[in-house]
């Protein structure tokens, strides 16, 4: 049983705790020399803190565990926090959650460093010239109220990231109360084009993928193990897929221009010329030779000679893939960010999805998702197009008040948007923020948010693994800083300014949430139990599982309008394609200030704490570049300079710079490390959906003459084992997996 009061008590006296940092030999060098031994025993000097009141389950020295929800990305993993003496120590996966089944990725675990981050905003800050001046919450609310007075609804805009659950409901109500419809849901990295293509081909935006049921997975740049949609969940499916059905191990083929973590785990990795993923898909359909009608007509020109020429994939590989896809069924074809990031991204994605239809995978390894019974809580899904729209509006000076909820568009908008300047045109800018990041620095009023370990909430993930799952977010410890507030609490306070009568029953967001959940007790599976029991069970489980209705997928194949452009000629001035890489650690850069994230080597390059320009050794040889050279990467929009890392897992026509580093604000661990590829990204858009075509930027590379040592975990031997049997491998014909445990 836990309620907010007991959480407070649990913490006892948070700032009176024993200093856990007093360590081995510490402070003791002098003492040791004076012969008093090395230890730092000081009888009677240290204070032992006892609780004033303690719950029965609170025993000093014994950890308690509470469930909550991970907010580091939108996959919606349920977490279990380990709590000792009122402090959350470590996050683990909640075994009850179908999404992550007790597992948690590195990014998720680093959330404690978000919570304890020394660079968090601690007070509401009001702009005073270049400085922020700490003000009280009352004053902040009053100020917002004042600034909103007389402003028309259409002059107010709010930009947020993905939002779901009761926050979304409350947020919607607030926007309603303001009379504004300008809620921009923006995610810098989101599979929006894939959603559109899925809608077209399957009738749903995000079907359930069953990698674990597939015998062959052919992925076009979908980094489902690293960054795509719900990586921890897919990784578990992947594990089952590799174990195989009846001992027949699943085969993973990955086609992309820049190797992702998933590509690194593939049985066959194909380096595809940037932007030609769709052509390859059509080539495979052609090679399969099973298509009929419209489809056959569409692919008939895509013989393997042409496809090979345009994509750079060997004809023999196309044959092999076609053969294995034919032989082993069901298979699964995935389309990911590498394919969607072009002007013709939707066409690419459609061509690839067509492959699934041709192979008959729809309904077998692609299943209909369950629908959320409370549509108002279903996630609002972020798009990059939203930022474009917002930016255009801001440029036109449409908004007098702009709310920003923990997104960082100043950092993630392509430089050509001039977002920073446009944002200045909005009269009054309020940022709900964890850090003083680039965007918060532009705001007039910064409201410090609780970390997700201090806040209440409910979340509905976009990708539901099994049944409908509503994730509960609850505080794992007392608020670390006295003057931060939960997002829900702030919303509630703001909405009360408009509709005081409607919300007067709720003292705080916790009360709102509790009553909102209990209202739907029956629908949430709590019929028959009393309020307190149900509420406590819900909190202790951390998730509510519901059986939702599963719709049907559309099986119709519509290839009308599917037309892929022939690959562009090499542009002499900008010969290379820039691939802004989304890495599993950094994602869009909102967590860069967590040192574990900075020090976790990038899985592929093993580089830490810095950005790099990834380049194929062959191309580097041509350009006379070696590892560690600082090169200038210039696009039509601008240029950045960074160290080169030579990496064989990239198409020679492409260079790649990871997203997420290059902050010039945010905090001590983020600021000044690396470069931000958004600064050179051209504003090119997917033609059908208006999404930013992130892979479409073309660049040239020039040496600056400087050279540095690349800070990475890999030694000078590189990826070579020098004949030692270290990471050994076998091929499937040598091994008999059925004997294994």
């Amino acid at each position: 049983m836990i309620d907010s009061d007991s959480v407070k008590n649990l913490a006892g006296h948070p700032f009176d705790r024993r200093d856990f940092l007093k360590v081995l030999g510490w402070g003791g060098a002098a003492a040791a020399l004076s012969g008093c031994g090395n230890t730092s025993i000081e009888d009677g000097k240290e204070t032992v803190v006892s609780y004033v009141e303690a719950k029965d389950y609170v025993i000093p020295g014994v950890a308690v565990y509470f469930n909550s929800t991970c907010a580091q990305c939108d996959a919606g993993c349920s977490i279990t926090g380990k709590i000792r003496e009122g402090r959350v120590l470590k996050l683990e996966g909640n075994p009850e959650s179908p999404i992550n089944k007790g597992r948690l990725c590195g990014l998720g675990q680093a959330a404690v460093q978000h919570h304890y981050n020394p660079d968090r905003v601690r007070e509401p800050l009001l702009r005073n010239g270049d400085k922020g001046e700490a003000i009280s919450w009352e004053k902040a609310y009053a100020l917002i109220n004042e600034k909103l007075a007389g402003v028309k609804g259409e002059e107010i805009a709010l930009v947020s990231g993905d939002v779901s659950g009761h926050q979304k409901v409350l947020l919607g109500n607030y926007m309603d109360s303001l009379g504004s419809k300008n809620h921009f849901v923006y995610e810098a990295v989101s599979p929006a084009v894939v959603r559109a293509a899925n809608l077209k081909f399957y009738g749903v935006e995000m079907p359930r993928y069953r990698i674990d049921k597939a015998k062959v997975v052919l992925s076009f740049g979908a980094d489902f193990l690293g960054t795509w949609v719900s990586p921890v969940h897919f990784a578990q499916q992947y594990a089952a897929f590799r174990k195989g059905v009846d001992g027949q191990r699943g085969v993973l083929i990955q086609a992309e221009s820049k190797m992702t973590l998933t590509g690194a785990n593939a049985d066959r990795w194909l380096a595809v010329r940037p932007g030609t993923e769709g052509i390859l898909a059509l080539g495979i359909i052609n090679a399969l030779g099973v298509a009929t009608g419209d489809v056959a007509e569409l692919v008939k020109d895509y013989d393997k000679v042409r496809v090979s020429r345009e994509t750079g994939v060997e004809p023999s590989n196309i044959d092999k893939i076609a053969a294995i896809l034919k032989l082993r069924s069901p298979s699964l074809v995935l389309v990911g960010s590498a394919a969607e990031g072009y002007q013709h991204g939707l066409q690419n994605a459609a061509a690839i999805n067509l492959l699934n239809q041709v192979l008959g995978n729809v309904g077998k390894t692609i299943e209909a998702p369950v629908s959320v019974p409370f549509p108002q809580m279903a996630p609002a899904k972020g798009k990059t197009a939203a930022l474009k729209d917002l930016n255009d509006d801001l440029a036109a000076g449409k908004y007098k008040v702009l709310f920003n909820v923990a997104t960082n568009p100043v950092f993630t908008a392509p430089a050509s948007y001039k977002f920073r300047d446009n944002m200045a045109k909005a009269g009054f800018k309020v940022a709900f923020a964890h850090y003083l990041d680039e965007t918060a620095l532009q705001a007039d009023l910064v409201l410090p948010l609780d970390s997700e370990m201090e806040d209440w909430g409910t979340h509905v993930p976009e990708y539901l693994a099994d049944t409908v799952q509503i994730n509960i977010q609850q505080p794992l410890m007392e608020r670390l800083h006295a003057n931060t507030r939960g997002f829900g609490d702030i919303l509630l306070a703001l909405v009360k300014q408009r509709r005081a009568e409607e919300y007067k029953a709720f003292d705080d967001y916790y009360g709102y949430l509790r009553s909102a959940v209990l209202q739907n007790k029956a629908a949430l599976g709590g019929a028959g139990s009393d309020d307190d029991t149900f509420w406590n069970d819900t909190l202790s489980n951390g998730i509510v599982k519901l059986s939702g209705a599963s719709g049907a997928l559309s099986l119709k194949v519509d290839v009308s309008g599917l037309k892929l452009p022939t690959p562009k000629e090499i542009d002499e001035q900008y010969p290379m394609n820039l691939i802004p890489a989304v890495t599993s650690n950094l994602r869009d850069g909102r967590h860069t200030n967590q040192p574990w994230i900075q020090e976790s080597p990038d899985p592929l390059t093993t580089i830490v704490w810095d950005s790099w320009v990834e380049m194929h050794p062959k191309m580097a040889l041509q350009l006379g570049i070696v590892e560690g050279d600082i090169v200038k990467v210039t696009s039509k929009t601008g240029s950045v300079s960074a160290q080169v890392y030579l990496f064989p897992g990239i198409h020679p026509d492409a260079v790649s710079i990871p997203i997420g580093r290059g902050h010039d604000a945010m905090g001590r661990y983020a600021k000044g490390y690396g470069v931000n590829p958004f600064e050179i990204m051209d504003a090119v858009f997917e033609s059908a959906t208006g999404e930013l075509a992130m892979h479409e930027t073309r660049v040239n590379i020039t040496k600056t003459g400087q050279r540095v040592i690349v800070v990475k975990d890999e030694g000078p031997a590189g990826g070579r084992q020098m004949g030692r049997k270290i990471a050994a491998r076998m091929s499937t014909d040598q091994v008999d997996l059925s004997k294994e445990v």
Partner: protein
Amino acid sequence: MHRYLYFPVMLAGFLMAIGCYAATDQQPTLTTEDDLGPQIQQPIEFPHYRHAGNRNTVDLTNSDPTKGGMEINCQYCHTYARRSLTAGIPPLQKCVGCHQNIPSVRDKPRIVELFKYWDAKKAIPWKKVHDLPDFVRFNHERHIKRFIEQQGRPVQEVCGYCHGQVKEMTTARRQKPITMGWCVSCHMKEHVVVVANKDGIPEGGTPLGKQAYWYTFQKPAETKNAAGELTAKGPNDCWLCHK
């Protein structure tokens, strides 16, 4: 010439004597002598002797603190010790829980002080009396399980091994050295083993034959000793305390 041999003979004799002493001194003597720690000023001078001290057998109603205590079990207040590595300090709630029902002492200065803390909902900043270096982890739970629960020794005796005669103190004062050598001197002794046995003997005995020890030193002896007991030395694994 023999006068030149005095010295070597004496030297040899001396070394032999040392050797014989080392060879025959089989059981280390448990360090029992007191090694008083500093007198510590606590925020409230808690009278242990009053709570845990022996009852005045002559006059059971005597409330004169010098004449006897209430024999409260150590574990009544120090309830965490049997459930956790660390013993912890009882929550303030515990003190108040009893004392709000004892109006007779309500006006005593210490109790007034206690209620001041309680009313302010502030924790009492007790000072640490038994401090171990931060690289040492002593497991209270395990020792209480073994000596109190398995072997049924009196609580005050068991706690007193390390904490001394707390029942005679006001605020506690360190009485034993609590150094590694002191800990070890007890582990080196042969202790009675309670053998786990599904039928009859309570849970919590040592699973004999599945003992996590390699060497005969720490394995329970094959045969019972004269007193009919199986004995074994305490664990000697560094990683039990240093982690």
